[in-house]
């Protein structure tokens, strides 16, 4: 069977499909050349979200990872470390439950839960709806915690400025090779649960970095543990630096206007 479109013809005979026509007898077909991205509608909504962020000088960070790699725990400890200096808000994406948003709210930070039902990723429209519930004038740094999934979220721009991917040391260090589309799009990779490296000898941080470099990615790779606040310094510095850059751009735009 043809492995391109699933029809019963062989691959070599595939070109003959084109123009053969499957219309009814006597119908006149017309072939149009078009160039329409399947993501065009999402990209438009994402650009709209980004305009909102930029108008308010907000840095938006999209957090992605497999389920259970510690995104919410990292956010909790990030709020502890940075919450007094920057005003943080969080959009939580999950298939079901408000649990993660509750954990964030318990830290005194506004959180909006998006429950996607069966959808395996957030898209720009979902984020746009969630933004209606957030006062961006009162936010410096917005985290969007994507649905735990290393495949689907990679395809959908949400309007974020930066993508951060977590790879926990309880996973395989070859994840960047297995999920190249996502890791290639990351602006920062965090090796989470790094306190467990002391007891797990089968995760090699150097190998994880090597796999990432093979994807022609030069981005920083940092080890973090939500349980060890001192390990978060590089991550917090990165966030503050990104925020200051965003803020400087915002001030320049405001002056120009």
């Amino acid at each position, binding site marked *: 069977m043809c*492995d*391109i*479109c*699933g*029809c019963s013809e062989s691959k070599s005979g*595939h070109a003959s*499909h*084109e*123009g053969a*026509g*499957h*219309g*009814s007898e*006597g*119908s*006149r*077909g*017309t*072939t*149009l*050349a*078009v*160039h*329409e*991205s*399947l*993501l*065009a*509608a*999402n990209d438009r909504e994402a650009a709209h979200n980004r305009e909102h962020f930029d108008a308010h000088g907000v840095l938006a960070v999209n957090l992605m990872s497999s389920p259970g790699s510690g995104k919410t725990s990292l956010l909790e400890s990030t709020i502890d470390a940075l919450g007094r200096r920057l005003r943080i808000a969080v959009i939580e994406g999950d298939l079901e439950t408000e649990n993660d948003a509750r954990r964030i709210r318990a830290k005194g930070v506004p959180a909006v839960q998006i429950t996607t039902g069966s*959808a*395996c*990723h957030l*898209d720009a429209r979902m984020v746009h709806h969630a933004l209606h519930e957030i006062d961006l004038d009162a936010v410096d740094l917005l985290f969007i915690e994507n649905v735990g999934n290393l*495949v*689907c979220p*990679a*395809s*959908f721009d949400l309007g974020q400025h930066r993508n951060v991917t977590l790879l926990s040391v309880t996973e395989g260090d070859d994840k960047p*090779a297995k999920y*190249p*589309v*996502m890791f*290639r799009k990351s602006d920062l990779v965090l090796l989470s649960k790094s306190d467990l490296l002391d007891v797990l000898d089968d995760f090699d941080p150097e190998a994880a970095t090597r796999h990432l*470099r*093979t*994807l*022609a*990615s*030069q981005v920083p790779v940092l080890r973090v543990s939500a349980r060890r606040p001192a390990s978060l310094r590089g991550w917090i510095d990165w966030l503050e630096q990104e925020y200051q850059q965003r803020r400087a751009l915002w001030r320049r735009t405001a002056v120009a206007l």
Partner: protein
Amino acid sequence: MHELALCQALIEAVEKIARREHASGVVSLTVTVGALSGVEPSLLARAFEIASASTLAQGARLLLEPTPVRVVCEDCGAQGEATIQRLLCASCGGGRVRVTAGDELHLSRIELERASTVPQCDAVPATGE
């Protein structure tokens, strides 16, 4: 499976074009799928059957055109093919490369069925048939 969401977007685009062109149906559509687009062609084909039901695209043949990844090296200037697991410059092995092809995901051709009572639109850049 995000392929279903992408198929729904595809069908919205196809229906918009078909209505604009006063087509009575869609014979075939061609989607260019880059190796780095994050889309699995076989899943896209399966999702299309589900998403196209009861739309103008129902029964249309979906042709998928896979495109390989191409990179250009910012250091040595070499251009060439790469794989999704190895995006380094094939010539100098450097990592400062720009992907020039292979991450696209777009509708590239659509073959429409004409309703016999509706005259053809002159503005259509027809390429065949």
